[in-house]
């Protein structure tokens, strides 16, 4: 097993730094996820036996890839010991044996990109893309992914197997998309990353440590993607997530209850994340290639740079929502814009829009719409209307922290009227 000359941290670090790169390249060379995983594990076992703690190979990644390649040949031969090798396996083992040139940094990076795009191929069910990328690219265990998504390990394991089988059986290619496909394919990668982030960031139930892990993994994955592709929206999404993340400590109180942006203690906002996020937004806007994520990040950046709601540049926020709406009409964005308009022009201006939106079929049963109406009626000093709206919101809210927030709002109305 594990050689005692290494300490546990060193082993864990080596594995963390190298396993995903090694796997990505082995998948390309071997054309098979399971074989690549088995070969990678055998390569690590050899490394633990052969490497001296104070004398590692110059390039551990290359060493592991090369060893993994040899291990794969052994595995193929072992599996087929009692049968003649099929012609395609003979071809594969010969190609592997011949593959002698050292692997360049660029190739290793390209392989990581290939792995990301393959896991997020649109031919794979989005429900499968997420666990697949967390397992294969981020290296989370199936148990960790299952508990983060509140499902059983066996359900998650089945999804991952389904994804790997689809890649193999339908022959989804292991390639970086061509230039004309890239924008669309990149979109689906970014939406997977954002879903992972939101799963970790949303206030729904679940083990909070593992859910924090998801936001961390989403940011890490996005950082990796940005080192591989210098694209404005890749920057935009990273900025958006960093700016959300900067408010982590301020958005929930000791009881796990939500604190709304306007009531958050802004001193708790993480300034170094804000600094990084704002710089990325600027860089993305300068490129003039930006889209949806960058504009959302820009809105978040305006909030992040304001010392209070009174001090917030609502004109700019309203204009940024306008850009989003021009691009793609969405009632949720109209709702957000209406709340910003109410901040600038007073509650009645916001209510006029929200009451129109109430009749759109998409938002009629959306608890946050009614919550926003309640808040604006309260500010307009129409407590009876506010009460009705909050009660409607309470009926529709599904998550316990949101229900508690609405109950608090209702209670504050009563206190006021007494």
């Amino acid at each position: 097993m594990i050689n005692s000359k290494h300490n546990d941290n060193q082993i864990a670090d080596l594995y963390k730094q190298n396993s995903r790169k090694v796997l990505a390249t082995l998948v390309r060379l071997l054309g098979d996820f399971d074989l690549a995983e088995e070969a990678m594990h055998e390569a690590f076992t050899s490394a633990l036996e052969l490497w001296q703690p104070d004398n590692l190979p110059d390039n551990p990644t290359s060493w592991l890839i090369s060893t993994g390649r040899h291990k794969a040949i052994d595995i193929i031969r072992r599996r087929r010991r009692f049968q003649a090798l099929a012609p395609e396996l003979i071809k594969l083992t010969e190609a592997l044996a011949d593959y002698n040139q050292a692997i360049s940094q660029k190739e290793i990076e390209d392989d990581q990109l290939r792995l990301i795009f393959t896991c997020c191929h649109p031919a794979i069910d989005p429900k499968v893309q997420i666990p697949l990328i967390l397992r294969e690219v981020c290296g989370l265990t199936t148990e960790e992914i299952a508990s983060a998504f509140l499902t059983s390990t066996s359900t998650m394991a089945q999804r991952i197997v389904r994804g790997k089988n689809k890649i193999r059986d339908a022959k989804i290619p292991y390639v970086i998309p061509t230039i004309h496909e890239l924008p669309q394919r990149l979109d689906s990668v970014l939406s997977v990353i954002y879903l992972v982030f939101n799963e970790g960031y949303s206030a729904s139930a679940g083990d909070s440590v593992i859910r924090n892990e998801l936001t961390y993994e989403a940011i890490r994955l996005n950082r990796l993607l940005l080192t591989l592709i210098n694209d404005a929206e890749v920057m935009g999404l990273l900025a958006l997530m960093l700016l959300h993340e900067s408010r982590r400590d301020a958005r929930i109180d000791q009881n796990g209850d939500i604190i709304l942006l306007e009531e958050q203690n802004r001193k708790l906002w993480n300034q170094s994340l804000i600094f990084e996020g704002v710089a990325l937004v600027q860089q993305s806007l300068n490129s003039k290639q930006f889209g949806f994520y960058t504009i959302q990040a820009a809105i978040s950046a305006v909030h992040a740079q304001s010392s209070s709601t009174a001090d917030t540049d609502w004109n700019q926020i309203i204009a940024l929502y306008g850009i989003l709406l021009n691009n793609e009409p969405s009632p949720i964005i109209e709702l957000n814009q209406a709340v910003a308009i109410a901040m600038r022009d007073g509650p009645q201006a916001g209510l006029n829009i929200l009451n129109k939106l109430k009749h759109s079929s998409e938002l009629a049963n959306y608890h946050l719409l009614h919550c926003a109406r309640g808040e604006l009626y309260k500010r307009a000093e129409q407590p009876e209307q506010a009460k009705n709206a909050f009660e409607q919101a309470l009926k529709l809210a599904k998550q316990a922290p949101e229900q508690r927030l609405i109950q608090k709002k209702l209670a504050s109305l009563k206190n006021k009227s007494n």
Partner: protein
Amino acid sequence: MQYMLLIYSDENNWTEEEGKACMLESMAIANELAEQGKWIASSPLDSVKTATSVRLRNGKRIITDGPFAETTEQLGGYFIIDVSDLDEALEIAGRLPPAKKGTVEIRPLFPLPV
């Protein structure tokens, strides 16, 4: 890698001219694929009104008039192609005229054991 492209659309949703144009365009794609050695077979199918289904139950052959299931979109034709991977199959499927009106389903052919 061999794939079958199963072309589904609502067969009542085509005018005669549209049908003819679709046929000509599909034939041109078939010819182009054949020149590249990627075409194995393709054909439009006659209307589902002409379909007959057969099932064997308890040794008895049951024949019914109509397709295996009544659906809003019907199988109206197919291609069998030999290309390098799913992305190439997707590219070809996306060029078939019925992709604009209906759905083209891509299925890898299951390799027979040698």
